[in-house]
């Protein structure tokens, strides 16, 4: 509560001046400005759009299968690939459009990050079977709640959840708005254009730290880590106890986190029975 609102920055550009209009002199009221000029303007537009109206607010295909251009300059509407500038075709939706999600079930690591990052709590992790017979937890999205903000695909560390250019969600049943992982995998396999922009991970991310005094070496974190970046390492036993002193009850192992592979999902923190793992930065 200490930083006060900063004072206004003085304008460095003196050229930002004002222009004053005065009321235009009263136009001579006559047939010319009463009727003729507006009619002429509208007529000009009519003649212009007689051949090809430029406003078509949805991708429209002519009966001959040719896709309609949408503006005066047909080149403009050639949607391009975001990164390379390669034209995709006229009348298509841009490939960075945030539409229905596509999920590659096979590369999903069940890290729950999409669920945590969803502002609308529309993602639920459900058990599903992958095509190669494994069982894992994958996101299921309720499009009745989804706001298509794209935070989930930004958070996905493996790039398996991304948004496609598909936007039709029409259905008669509200239950059909819940897309199971299998449905999203089917969308993934249709190879729709997917959002090509992946965000780099922030540079000053938190790491998983260990409170060594509390750890009992139970292996739960290493077992549940989706990226298997936690290894249990042996720690040296203390020297022989003095007579009468009891050693603490622990297995002489403790987790070591590989920060390069860690996706910061926090699963290890949530499964730790002793709450000995926590977020923080080294040093």
């Amino acid at each position: 509560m200490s930083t006060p609102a900063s004072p206004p920055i003085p304008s460095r550009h003196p050229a930002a001046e004002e222009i004053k209009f005065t009321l235009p002199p009263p136009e001579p009221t006559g047939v010319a400005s009463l009727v003729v000029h507006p009619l002429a303007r509208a007529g000009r537009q009519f003649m212009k759009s007689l051949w090809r109206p430029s406003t078509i607010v949805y991708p429209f295909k002519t009966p001959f299968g040719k896709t309609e251009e949408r503006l005066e300059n047909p080149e403009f509407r050639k949607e391009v690939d975001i990164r390379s500038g390669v034209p995709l075709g006229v009348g298509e939706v841009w490939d960075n459009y945030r539409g229905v999600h596509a999920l590659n079930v096979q590369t999903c690591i069940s890290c729950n990050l999409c669920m945590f990052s969803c502002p609308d709590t529309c993602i639920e992790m459900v058990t599903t079977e992958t095509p190669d017979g494994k069982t894992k937890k994958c996101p299921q999205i309720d499009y009745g709640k989804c706001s298509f903000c794209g935070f989930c695909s930004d958070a996905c560390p493996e790039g398996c959840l991304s948004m496609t250019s598909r936007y039709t969600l029409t259905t008669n049943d509200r239950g059909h708005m819940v897309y199971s992982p299998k449905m999203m995998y089917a969308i993934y396999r249709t190879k729709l254009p997917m959002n090509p922009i992946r965000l780099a991970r922030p540079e000053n991310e938190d790491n998983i730290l260990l409170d060594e005094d509390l750890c009992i070496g139970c292996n739960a974190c290493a077992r549940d880590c989706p990226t298997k970046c936690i290894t249990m390492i042996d720690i040296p036993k203390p020297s022989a106890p003095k007579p009468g002193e009891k050693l603490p009850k622990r297995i002489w192992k403790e987790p070591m986190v590989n920060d390069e592979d860690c996706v910061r999902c926090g699963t290890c923190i949530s499964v730790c029975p002793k709450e000995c793992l926590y977020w923080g930065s080294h040093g």
Partner: protein
Amino acid sequence: MSAATLLGVSFWLAQTMFSTLRPITPAPLLPLMGPQAQLATGYLLAGTLVFATGLVNSIMLIWWERKLLGRFMDRRGAMHVGYAGLLQNFADGLKLFRKQPLRPREADKLGYLLSPTAYLATSLAIVGFLPVSTGWVPGVAPLSLLMALALFSFAPFFIFVGAWSSNNKYSLIGGMRTAAQLVAYEVPLLFAIVSVVLLAGTFDLTGIVNAQIHDGWFALPLALGLIIFFVAMLAEVERIPFDLPEAEAELVEGWNTEYGGMLFAMTTLGDYVRALVGSYLVVLLFLGGWWMPAGPYTAAINGFPLAGILWFQVKVYIVFAVFVWVRASLPRVRTDQLLQIGWKRMIPLSLANVFLAAAFVAEGWPPFPKLL
């Protein structure tokens, strides 16, 4: 009566029908199939033909307006039902027809239900008095123009009844505006017609067109009258810039705010029937009706009435296109400005126009041979 007129065609149809039906009619019913019944059926068929023509024509007018307005706004109009959206309005009508009729609880039942019906019926009845080609009118009425105008001026009454009985403040204001507007613009409209009647010397629309075939379009001597008639007609059929009774920006839908379903379809259709009648009248009174400019083929085409009908229709659609053009390019005027234009500008101008016409009658039309 020649075969190629409206009555001729309907009587021929009735005769064919009766002569086919008489042999297979049981004996006790034969007295019902007498010549009088045949005559009545003929008239009924003629009426049905006119009715269907007016209805289909005004529905196609909606399509025409939508397509034109689309081009004016730099888009396509309706284009999915039928070729180029030709059947779109029939689909819309069907949808409205299937809707549940709803009536506001506090509305007056009789007035609420009656007024759209009467509005549409009186508007359609006008079509029966307008000839579309030589002999193509159900009855020969020497005062058909007056009859058409009398029916035309019924509308504000029904609009006001509907507006009052639907018990809505928007409807009420819309109804009030309609009454003020239609009364204000009836006067210049009639004066403009007076000038035409002066020149033609008859109230019979067929006679007026014949006079134009003889003298040339009345639009030439009465250019001022045409403009006045056109503007007054814009106000009478409640189109932009004079669509104050249903100014959708401030009064939701004006006097038909409370109407839905088929009743709404009837009010809208009534508007377009009136627009159709307005275009008919412009063509009949000023633009030479079904008479086409002279050419090598004129005699052949004028001898064949159906060609005249086609020519007439083309003119009507062009006149309506001007209506749409005006709608696309002008904003709506305000109530006081509207009445000001009506009472202060239009009426003096239309009076001047009457004097002009009188001068032409006195001097003889066309004046140019004399001047030359």
